[in-house]
């Protein structure tokens, strides 16, 4: 596919320390649509790149409360409305008996919300990503660290951004086509 749409610029670094300092310079330069790709979690990179706080927590809270409401509705429907049965003198819809199920439904929906919400926010699953076009990107699972600046960044300019990344110590700086 020959397209003139640029996805961004990717630079390679050879250590966690060097990519950490590179990220500091990228943020100081004013780039915002950035990302770091590393073989293992490098603590503090998200703060240096000023990554916004994940919205996953709010999603999980909503799922949890949905679970509570669903469980209560389910037990009220089954035990008190549709087919009420009196067991050992307890009311058909007695709150103490609903707590364990409510708790479990809250946990279940929160857990599912956390896993699938994480997938959705990361736009997974996907079979291909433009960054795979970089010539040495396969070493990201081994011993190299990559820093990308996307074309959607307001400060992005393929020539200037490339030179900037080379200037702060990036190797194999390549412009990636979408």
């Amino acid at each position, binding site marked *: 596919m020959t397209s003139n749409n640029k996805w961004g610029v990717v630079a390679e670094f050879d250590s966690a320390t060097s990519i950490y300092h590179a990220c500091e310079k990228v943020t100081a330069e004013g780039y915002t649509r950035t990302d770091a790709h590393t073989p293992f979690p490098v*603590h503090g990179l998200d703060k240096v790149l000023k990554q916004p706080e994940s919205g996953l927590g709010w999603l999980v809270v909503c799922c949890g409360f949905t679970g509570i409401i669903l469980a209560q509705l389910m037990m009220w429907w089954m035990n008190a409305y549709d087919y009420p049965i009196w067991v050992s003198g307890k009311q058909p819809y007695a709150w*103490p008996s609903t707590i364990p199920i409510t708790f479990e439904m809250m946990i279940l929906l929160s857990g599912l919300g956390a896993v699938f919400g994480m997938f959705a926010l990361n736009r997974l699953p996907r079979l291909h990503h433009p960054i795979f076009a970089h010539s040495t990107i396969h070493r990201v699972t081994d011993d190299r660290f990559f820093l990308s600046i996307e074309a959607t960044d307001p400060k992005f300019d393929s020539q200037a951004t490339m030179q900037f990344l080379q200037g702060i110590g990036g190797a194999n700086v390549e412009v990636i086509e979408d």
Partner: protein
Amino acid sequence: MTATATQTTARSLSQIAPNVTSRVKAGDLATAQNGLIAVGVLIALLGYFEVFGHHGALSYLVGYMGVLGIALCALFFTMIQHITRAGWSVSVRRLAENMTGTLPFMLLMFIPIIYGFDDIYGHWAHANITDPNAANYDAVLAGKSSYLNKEFFFVRVGIYFAIWIALATFFRQNSIKQDESGDPALSMKMSRVAAPGLLLFALSITFAAFDWIMSVDPHWFSTIFGITYFAGGFMSFLAFTILLSMWLNSKGYYKEAINTEHYHDLGKLMFSFMIFWTYTNFSQYMLIWYANLPEETQWFTHRTLHGWGTIGTALIIGHFAFPFVFLLSRNVKRHKLGLPIGAVAMLLVHCLDMQFLILPSGLHGAEAHGGDGGALAAVADGDHGNGFGAYLATIDWADYGCFIGLLMVFTGLTLMNVRRTNLIPLRDPRLSESINFENF
């Protein structure tokens, strides 16, 4: 890992965090310490001797058990950090160790309970209660009398305090010794002792809760009772630690040694043990409700009368629903105002929890002692005496006053210990890890 093989000593505080002073300046905090102890003793004694009140011994027990839970769980905190060889908590641990240093004084503060023994534990210590021919013979209490008798009760008081004071002294003294030598072998030694220490702690706090709180209603029994007491106590210990260390921090101590990351972790633990308290209490309630046996349900029947039903609801909201929503967010736990507000609320509901456990059994013992007749008749008459007004008519000021007074004494005694030792374990091998740790 054999730490003895290398014989390296840990780095000193001046190398890790040069800003942090290792000791309280001479004379500093002395006014706070003496003032807290003096005013606290005064308030507790006014409460105990029923000045403007009417059930001093029970009020004192409410306050005492509330504060004892904090002191004991400081010991638990110390041991759990050693057994897990935790790094994050090292700079907080000295404060907990200094709280455990108050346990000998807690034994001293137990004397009013011995003095008021008949007011509190009279239900099972009546004369002739085990004599089949006596008018007040009670077959259930006669069956329990090999455990619930005055002599064995006091022997157990001695055993519990012997365990607690011995463990507290061991961990505090070895930690202080490490300030001088920096010997990592001391950490290994404390880690090894923490395992049997925790076992002894679990058994002693469980039976202490049985003896000192549950036996106020001697007919009733619950095997999970000790754990509910422990859960509330540990939550309160964390709340108290957050507040005290924040106050010391505002005085210019600790600085980066106890920072937002530590407060965040203490807040997380406080949040989780608030939920654990709810979990254990619900587990207890659920089984009693489900089985519906009179000998067990009578305990909750008493807690629907004289306004205690309102307090039960208040505990569900104040000890669970509200703090759950309030403290759930990471941002609140890291907020310099949000977390202490939560901590103050947790200490208040801890006092309310102690009232709910002790006072309904203690104050309305006649109903409790005469089987369910009195209480059930009151329910049948529609005389629930419920609502917040009934609660206010039931309690008196000392039910809060003794807790606040004894908490002030406890704070003063802790400050006394804080002033005598270094503020943090200066040469603990994991101190650097603790000061530099971050929540990611």
